[in-house]
């Protein structure tokens, strides 16, 4: 029998249904791999007992010929999702010991469909970072290494634990979240498929908030089909989230393989930025050719406001974060400083000890841009530009069905390389933040390797709630790229 961890999520799903393998076998196989992969630091918490318990329950159902769309499939959960009675840290010291009494809607949906939880995945603190180095639990290491080098590389961020664990086959798939690119950039850096759905497609209830108007959860998976199946389970209207949208969830898997004939794919010239490696430019051109070969019409488009997207993002996201993170004050849960004289020093010491540098930086920036006297110049102006960026996309999507761009401006870089230069770090999000600002669905698909043998991804953007067309395009890219390289298991 093949090793169940070698199977994709959908292959495993089918094998489980055919009783070629049991969920407990698959779960134990993954737990064994996780145990050997300590060097990757992908998990904050491994929930082995809970996983086996869930697997046994799934096997019973499967034995009766019952079970949901993900019955018995072992998944990793980004530690931003609250999971009942299971430590949930958001990668932060300030949530020390926090075990929620509730389950996020997304994970509830996954368990409803039969998935098994292997554990909680490492991430940048409060999802703030592009390299997974801001985690209180230490950086995640990318399973990919440059040829001839054993330098440790970033798996991207903030969903670095998700991307690394999927790339290293430590789970069949993982949940992730994307506020400015936190699903798509890690996917690009680890040769995995990452989907950020339309804002409102997936419930935010029970997901620790970073920037409420931008946050959206989605899957990180080995291939496009896996991502389609996971998103179907994760998505749906949730009355507990006022920004969640009440419309039916299509069968994304059914959209795969459909004809792309006549689809118009836009190529925005503004995504050709200074200093971008020639290989990424070439890969992008290959993507254009692949889409053309699949029957698409290529349309050159212009999105002139793209250059403002990053500055706008780094005003709006910290502003919302500064307010969202006010609740971590040591009064109700999580870390509380031992030494304090009064309520003010309790707040100060708790937050000084509990938050890392990047989180503090963003709270400071966010507080500043919302302050009296600066609000109009920063926050209000940023919101106006955000609205115009949205309008610009609406205009572009009146001419095209999909937009094709690179996912990230570089391949995986060495851990430590950008930690002292926040602006360089923020530039990682240059191609991805636009989709968050405009609320559009976006996805990264592995497309090739650079000269060092490191993966690179291509990004597709689609109209709001048109994930089906996006999946169709992703599938075409995947087929054309024929990417089937996996990293050498140096860590095992």
């Amino acid at each position: 029998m093949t090793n169940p961890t070698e199977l994709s999520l959908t292959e495993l799903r089918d094998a489980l249904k055919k009783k070629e393998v049991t969920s407990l076998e698959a779960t134990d196989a993954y737990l064994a791999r996780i145990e050997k992969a300590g060097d990757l630091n992908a998990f904050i918490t491994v929930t082995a007992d809970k996983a086996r318990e869930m697997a046994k329950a799934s096997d019973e159902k499967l034995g009766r010929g019952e079970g949901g769309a993900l019955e018995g499939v072992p998944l990793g959960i980004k530690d931003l999702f609250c999971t009942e009675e299971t430590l949930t840290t958001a990668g932060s010291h300030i949530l020390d010991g926090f075990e929620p009494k509730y389950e996020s809607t997304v994970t509830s949906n996954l368990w409803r469909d039969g998935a098994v939880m292997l554990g909680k995945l490492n991430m940048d603190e409060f999802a703030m970072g592009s390299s997974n180095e801001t985690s209180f639990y230490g950086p995640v290491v990318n399973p990919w290494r440059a040829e001839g080098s054993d330098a440790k590389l970033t798996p991207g961020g903030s969903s670095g634990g998700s991307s690394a664990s999927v790339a290293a086959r430590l789970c069949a798939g993982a949940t992730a979240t994307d506020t400015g690119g936190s699903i798509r950039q890690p996917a690009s850096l680890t040769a995995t498929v990452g989907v950020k759905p339309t804002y409102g497609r997936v419930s935010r209830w029970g997901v620790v908030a970073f920037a409420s108007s931008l946050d959206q959860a989605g899957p990180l998976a080995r291939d496009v089909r896996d991502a389609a199946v996971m998103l179907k389970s994760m998505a749906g209207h949730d009355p507990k989230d006022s920004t969640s949208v009440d419309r039916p969830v299509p069968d994304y898997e059914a959209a795969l393989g459909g004809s792309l004939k006549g689809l118009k794919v836009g190529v925005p010239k503004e995504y050709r930025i200074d200093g971008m490696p020639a290989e990424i430019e070439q890969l992008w051109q290959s993507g254009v050719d692949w889409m053309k070969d699949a029957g698409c019409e290529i349309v050159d488009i212009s999105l002139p406001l793209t250059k403002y997207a990053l500055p706008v993002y780094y005003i709006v996201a910290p502003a919302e974060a500064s307010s969202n993170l006010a609740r971590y004050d040591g009064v109700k849960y999580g870390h509380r400083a031992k030494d304090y004289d009064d309520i003010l020093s309790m707040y100060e010491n708790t937050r000084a000890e509990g938050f890392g540098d990047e989180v503090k930086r963003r709270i400071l920036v966010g507080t500043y841009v919302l302050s009296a006297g600066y609000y109009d110049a920063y926050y209000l102006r940023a919101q106006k530009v955000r609205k115009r960026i949205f309008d610009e996309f609406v205009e572009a999507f009146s001419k095209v069905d999909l937009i094709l761009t690179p996912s990230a401006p570089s391949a995986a870089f060495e851990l430590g390389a950008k930690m002292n230069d926040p602006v360089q770090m923020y530039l990682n999000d240059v191609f991805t933040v636009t989709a968050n600002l405009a609320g559009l669905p976006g996805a990264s698909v592995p497309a090739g390797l650079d000269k060092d043998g490191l993966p690179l991804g291509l990004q597709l953007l689609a109209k709001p709630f048109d994930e089906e067309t996006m999946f169709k395009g992703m599938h075409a890219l995947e087929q054309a790229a024929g990417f089937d390289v996996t990293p050498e298991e140096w860590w095992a």
Partner: protein
Amino acid sequence: MTKSRKLLQGSTGDWEVVVGLEVHAQVSSKSKLFSGSSAEYGAGPNENVSLVDAAMPGMLPVINKYCVEQAIRTGLGLNAKINTWSRFDRKNYFYPDLPQGYQISQYKDPIVGEGEIEVELDGGETINVGIERLHLEQDAGKSIHDLAPNESYVDLNRSGVALMEIVSKPDMRSAEEGAAYFTKLRTIVRYLGTCDGNMEEGSMRADVNVSVCPAGNYDKFRETGDFKYLGTRTETKNVNSIRFTKQVIDYEARRQIEVLESGGSIDQETRLFDPKTGETRTMRSKEDAHDYRYFPDPDLLPLEFDEAWVEEIRASLPELPDAKKHRFMDDYGLSAYDAAVLAMDKDKADYFESVAKGRGGKLAANWVTGDLFGALNKADREIGDSPVSAAQLGSLIDLIKDGTISGKIAKDVFALIFEGEETGDPADIVESRGLKQVTDTGAIEKIVDEIIAANPKQVEQVKEKPKTMGWFVGQVMKASGGKANPQAVNEILKKKLGL
């Protein structure tokens, strides 16, 4: 427009006081503004707290439609503009009883805009007070500092309870006007059922804004709209009774005049009222004022509804106090004063109306505002728990009107019921206690004859001074146990005494 202008005399000249109120009224709702937990008063500490109220990570607010409806109702009751598009903002500050680290409120785009209400003053004068806005917001929890020497406790039962903040324009000119406005506001929300107006439970409280300016400046402000004519205001927070509101205005006006006349200046600051001393003191100065960093709450969509819903709510509004007052004057012939006294309290108005219906207003008004309110006052009871029901009082009035009992006997029966010595239908009480008026002239003549025979001296006297016949009336009434028909007694006495 004539204004009741109360000038305050200072040592350097006359001053005017200008008052504006921000009243927080708790929405009468079973559940909180953004969570499903109970908003009932009186639960044990932290019993009414949901995950949302405690600001657990990842929790999201969902607007309570019922609370929105109550805010619209209140806006309509204040004759105010209803904004069919409004928005919730976050007001950011740190305090342990504010678990989110921000209060969800409405800043730039409130659900209700400008309006105006009529306010009755003692002495019958009426003023108009403008409403600036009404917005919905969350209440905070409660910090308790006196349970342990080195620790504070937090009760989150109130955290997230829906409040309406009703902001007046600076249209009040004295402590009396401020108090009358607060009273009228309370009457309106109680009529509407949107707030129970219960001050002891904190359902209504006011932030009282007071400033003083030299006499004449207020009119210049009214003409120009320029705030430079008004003095710097202070805001006294969380005043939880109408009486205290009056005290705050009086105290602040006098204090500010003294400061200004001795060459000082007023700081724009937040103050606290001490009910024990009747004084206010600085809570925080402008320099310490929070920068609340308001911004639209990204967890909530803008609050939008259509005109049709507003009209539906408008159609369901009860008769409001001003309309009721005028109807009482027109339909029952009441004086403006009596009509206002009754109409300003819905329970009193309802009581009066069920007594007056089909019986005529004057007699009913006399009984309700006189005997009943007097007795309730003395017993320190509310109309809601009056021992004499409206039906009983109505029946009592019927007995007077058909001559079954006299007004005097009616008062006795009323007292018997009020004191709890009798219950049930007054007609039965009169019957069983034998209190029916004696109209049988034979029986009265017999008593009259006996009294005339027993009092020859008085008989001599009354022939010279006919006015002393009252003594005989009293004797006859006494002998009849108060049951003799007074008119019949008078006639028989006159005849027998030859007057």
